[in-house]
């Protein structure tokens, strides 16, 4: 048993030598990721797609992302993204964190008969994810991840109010949407190394 453990330890040390050598040779390189998936929340399931582009150095990646998110309202999150890979190998778990702004892609109003106008104000977007990336080769890899995300928006509606002496001043309603979801993503990543 002791011999087995010693052999296993030696084996792991040799294997880890390879990543160390790779680290010495590793330089920064451009990395681009496009992913799609679903978000699941109290309002049901919706589709999303996103792209993140930035620089990878060793086990770290930093970049800028943008996406299209159909949950509740169609919106465009734009954010900074940071990913920590647990290994520099082609196959690695990762932890991802995104934070930025969420912009509405204006939708037509008209659900309410007396709605005069609507206007969206940008909100906040953030996402936390744990996933796994598996490489096809040095340049291309697939990834999938499971996470939790949040997006917010503010909507200001102007509503007509009947009064004695029209034309009359309208009333305004402000809606604040704070939306929480589980996310599931599948992505393809391209590295320029």
């Amino acid at each position, binding site marked *: 048993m002791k011999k087995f453990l010693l052999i296993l330890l030696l084996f792991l040390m040799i294997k880890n030598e390879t990543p160390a050598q790779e680290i010495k040779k590793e330089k920064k390189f451009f990395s681009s990721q496009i992913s799609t998936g679903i978000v*699941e*929340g*109290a*309002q049901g399931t919706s589709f999303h797609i996103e792209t993140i582009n930035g620089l990878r150095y060793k086990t770290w990646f930093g970049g800028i992302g943008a996406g299209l998110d159909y949950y*509740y309202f169609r919106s465009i999150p734009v954010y900074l993204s940071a990913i920590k890979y647990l290994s520099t190998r082609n196959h690695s778990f990762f932890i991802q964190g995104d934070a930025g702004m969420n912009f509405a892609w204006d939708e037509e109003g008209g*659900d*309410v*008969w*007396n*709605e*005069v*106008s609507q206007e969206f104000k940008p909100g906040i977007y953030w996402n936390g994810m744990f996933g796994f990336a598996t490489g096809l080769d040095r340049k291309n890899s697939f990834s999938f991840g499971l996470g*939790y995300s949040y997006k917010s928006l503010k909507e200001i509606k102007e*509503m*007509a*109010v*009947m*009064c*004695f*002496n*029209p*034309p*009359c*001043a*309208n*009333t*305004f*309603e*402000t*809606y*604040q*949407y*704070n*939306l*929480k*979801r*589980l996310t599931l993503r599948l992505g393809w990543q391209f590295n320029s190394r």
Partner: protein
Amino acid sequence: MVFALQSCLKDNVTRTYSIFEPIYKSKAEVLAEIKSSTPVSISSPGKIYMYGNYIFLNEVNKGVHIIDNSNPASPVIKAFINIPGNVDIAVKGSTLYADLFTDLVVLDITNPLNVALQKVVPKIFPERVYAAGFTGDSTKVIVGWTEKVIKEKVDQPPVGRGWIRADALLSVSSAPAGNSGGVKSITGIAGSMSRFSIVNDQLYAVNNTSLKVLNIATMNDPQLQNTVWVGWNIETIYPFKNKLFLGSSNGMFIFDISNPAAPVREGSVAHFRACDPVVADNDYAFVTLRAGTFCQGTNNQLDVIDVQNVMSPRLVKTYGLTNPHGLAKDGNLLFICDGSDGLKVYNASNVMDLQLLDRIKNLETYDVIAWNKRLLLVAKGGLYQYDYSDPSHLSLISKMTVK
């Protein structure tokens, strides 16, 4: 664990809006305060009336500013008359008529700085209620409103709160109504967006559905003579010779007042749902249609209607505009307040081809009076006076700002 997960996935949607709860006073208190008081700043300009060297400017739902305009380059607010609920005014001789919610008040303005209440004619406008479900205490007078902000959770995707509330208003109308030029008479000059109109010894007043006729031969003792059903959503009245042009959200009506006490409907022109003030001359009526707000229409335009045959008026031309409000006409000059697009001055000698002569930009304009080369313009920023001796180049005489 399940509850924790549900909590993490629960969306939080809130809705925030204002309601306005009434501030009451007794009728006796209110009537005792109807007099010339210390001048106050203009904040919500409404209907405007020109009479001699004075301008009477309605402060929507609050009262009337008395402005000494003997020097148009430097008008001075001399006094303010507290009249809660006031939205319309008219002047004949030394008498000012104003609405106080459902009542008509009669004021002696011989000395505008010492106005005296002459008479209160109750329930002339019984249809005047705050809509949207709100019902006030009829034993008292609403003199103001307290704004209260409501924030509430919304469980489902909001489809609108609706506007029915019995205890408060959802908005307090402070949008200027406005006036635009008309026929000068001893009664002074009112405008295209007015609900009052004085023709000789009659005061005509419209509410949502009907036309009231009051005899004011004895100026300080008006007597209700007649109530004529007109239709729905009646908004404005404009007199021209022996006709009254009534604007509504669905069209324009023409009434003959050859018998002053008994107006007779002669013709009408329907249009798409919009708010519409109107002015007229011998041959044509000019009607602006405005979309948005409670008017709910989608049209912003000027309609020119041939009224030479009042029994059968017909639309002859439509001009697209931005968001028109009040308008005025002096001879061949047509002045249109086109909302945020400013004031537009047209040569209307050929109604089929209006020519834009001048435009005052960067003003959100509501209504206008044009008389004797002088223009009184009510805009979001205040009350402006222009000289239109050269209609291609209006020159600013004075400006009274809104606080």
